[in-house]
């Protein structure tokens, strides 16, 4: 049988039912200064376009019309028109923005300026800086509560999660977490905050009413040195049932029961798995794998990695457009 037909056949199997794959995926390639565009219909990279220097954090506006990309070494968050992928304008992000989070309505962007120990708050419609907040050393992860009232920033060398009131821009609480906190996220109901710590190898879960830590999660993968188990990116499912953690150089994603905190599985993905994002229907979870330069696709229901797609050098962030 000719090879082309075999491949076609295999692809056809993967694509049943085809209606599942309708999304477009954007991946920042940190060391290529590009964004790869993956068509989820064909699971192929259909476009790669230049965005600026050292692209890392990436997200879409709530209306899916604008693609925001942190171009760290250009000291900006660049806005692209999703229709034609042309640059629209730069937002004043402060120096060296690494990653950011949008407010639920999309009217603000909160970004961490890792070299200046500040978080910059940007008004997205006026394209101006609303405020800059002093935080700890090397701010990194940013998260916003579902009601938009609390913003969390993790500082990697201070080892804290800073709780910030988005009306007053004041830090009202600091929570110590494990060494080198990387990312944070709230449950959809806003009751818990989850913070990953890369070097500590832990995930701290906080009660957002009391700011008290509920539990500290640790991971153990057979055959992998404990020091390589480094939680970085995370994703919490909308129903509050599952939590996924990218474990960096352990090359696995941990699947945790978000109610019992039991680790359900470790899924082997690419090397140095970094960030996670779901498809719109939440049937699949995508991972960026920095060292192997690819994106893995996890089938959430079956808890299986079904495919990896080669992108550029050092894929960092991922955003999905329905």
């Amino acid at each position, binding site marked *: 049988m000719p090879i082309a037909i075999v491949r076609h056949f295999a692809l056809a199997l993967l694509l049943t039912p085809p209606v599942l794959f309708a999304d477009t995926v954007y991946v920042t390639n940190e060391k290529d200064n590009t964004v790869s565009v993956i068509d989820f219909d064909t699971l192929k990279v259909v476009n790669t376009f230049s965005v600026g220097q050292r692209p890392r954090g990436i997200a879409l506006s709530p209306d899916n019309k604008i693609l925001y990309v942190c171009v760290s070494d250009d000291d900006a968050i660049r806005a692209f028109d999703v229709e034609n992928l042309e640059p629209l304008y730069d937002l004043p992000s402060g120096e*060296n923005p690494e990653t950011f989070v949008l407010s639920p309505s999309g009217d603000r962007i909160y970004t961490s300026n*890792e*070299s200046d*120990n500040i978080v910059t708050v940007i008004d997205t419609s006026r394209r101006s800086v609303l405020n800059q907040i*002093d935080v*700890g*050393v*090397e701010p990194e992860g940013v998260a916003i509560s579902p009601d938009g009232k609390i913003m969390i920033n993790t*500082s*990697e*060398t*201070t*080892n*804290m999660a*800073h709780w910030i009131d988005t009306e007053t821009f004041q*830090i009202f609480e*600091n929570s*110590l977490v494990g*060494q*080198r906190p990387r990312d944070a996220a709230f449950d959809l109901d806003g009751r818990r905050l989850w913070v990953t710590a*890369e*070097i*500590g*190898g832990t995930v701290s879960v906080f009660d957002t009413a009391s700011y008290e830590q509920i539990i500290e999660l640790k991971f153990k993968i057979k055959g992998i*040195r404990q*020091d390589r188990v*480094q939680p970085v990116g995370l994703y919490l499912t909308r129903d509050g049932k599952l939590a996924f953690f990218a474990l960096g*150089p352990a090359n696995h994603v941990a699947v945790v029961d978000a109610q019992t905190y039991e680790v359900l599985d470790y899924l082997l993905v690419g090397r140095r798995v970094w960030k996670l994002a779901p498809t719109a229907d939440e049937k699949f979870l995508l991972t960026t794998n920095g060292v192997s330069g690819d994106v893995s696709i996890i089938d959430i229901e079956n808890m299986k990695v079904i495919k990896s797609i080669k992108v550029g050098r050092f894929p960092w962030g991922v955003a999905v457009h329905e």
Partner: protein
Amino acid sequence: MRASHLCSLLMLTAVLLPVDAENIRVGYLVETRDPPPVLSNLDDPPEDEGVAGAVLGISDNNSTGKFSGQGYNLEVRHIDQGEDPKTALASMATDGIRFVLLDLETDTLLRLLQQPVPNHLLMFNIAAQDRRLRDSDCHASLLHTALSRDMRSDALAQLLLKKRWKRWFLVAGHRAGDEKFAAAVKRSAKKFGARIVAQKDWSGDFDARRSAPAEVPLFTQGPDYDVLMVADESGDFGDYLLFNTWDPRPVAGTQGLVAKTWGRPVEQWGAAQLQERFLKQANRWMMPRDYAAWLAVRSIGEARLRNPDATSSGIEGYIRSEKFQLAGYKGRKMNYRRWNGQMRQPVPIMWARALVSQAPLEEFLHQRNELDTLGLDRADSRCKLN
């Protein structure tokens, strides 16, 4: 270090502290050194190596201290080369300083340790690499954030063994550190199963800048070896061995492929951020002593942050405990060996422009902690502090 420059840095780090903040003073005792003349004089050694790293550590601690209510100050005292450091240390202790970074030559440090050290003082060796300080001459009040030579040569040995480059031709200069580095290389060869197939001393009686292409091929002709291991700590001649050997062989040791605690090519695990922060502050790249000083100051900051006991003995107790861990941009948490106070740390292996690997390499296992495959392990050290 120009005094005015240092003053302005110190003021910079002292600013922004709440008035009622708990003040933690960190002393820095530095011996003025007169670097020996070297043939390879491309780079001027910076005058503030070490202290600039401590300044950055203080500034990092203060950024965190804003949220936890601590302020840190650095207080630098200079002594002349070879001067007895006892008086300077005693006056720091009398002033109420409880943590002191020691940026001293080995002999000066040994002299200090042979006399009674003021009570309630925790010292960090950020410069001296000698094995004996972690072995028979260790001290209960002294921690080491500087790597020992053994840790560096063990790191190199791991990589060379992995590559099956097991036959080493050792070339040593005859300055103070060269002999010690050569001894470390020999111990590493034995420990990991490499062989020193030839050894020669570099007499250094001609100017290799002019005559290396003529001298080095003859000097290296004969032995059948895989790697030329050079022991030239002051950087006198080692650079001229590269590409001048009789056989096409790589050079490793103190030049060529080197293992050290920090260097410009280190950029993984967020290291690019530390590099950038340091460059901005000091207007030069971070060097090993800067990094060791930064580690020491950050150890104090991290221990205070995690430990409700604010006394100096409380902070010291936490640093020495199993709970202590420090993220130091090398991908693994670091802590201190209980038996001799040496900080466990990964050792980057690099040449001038790129990182080649980082020890411990995965192939080298250890029953407790892979980082203990580098340097003196508990069973081998005559130091039994705990």
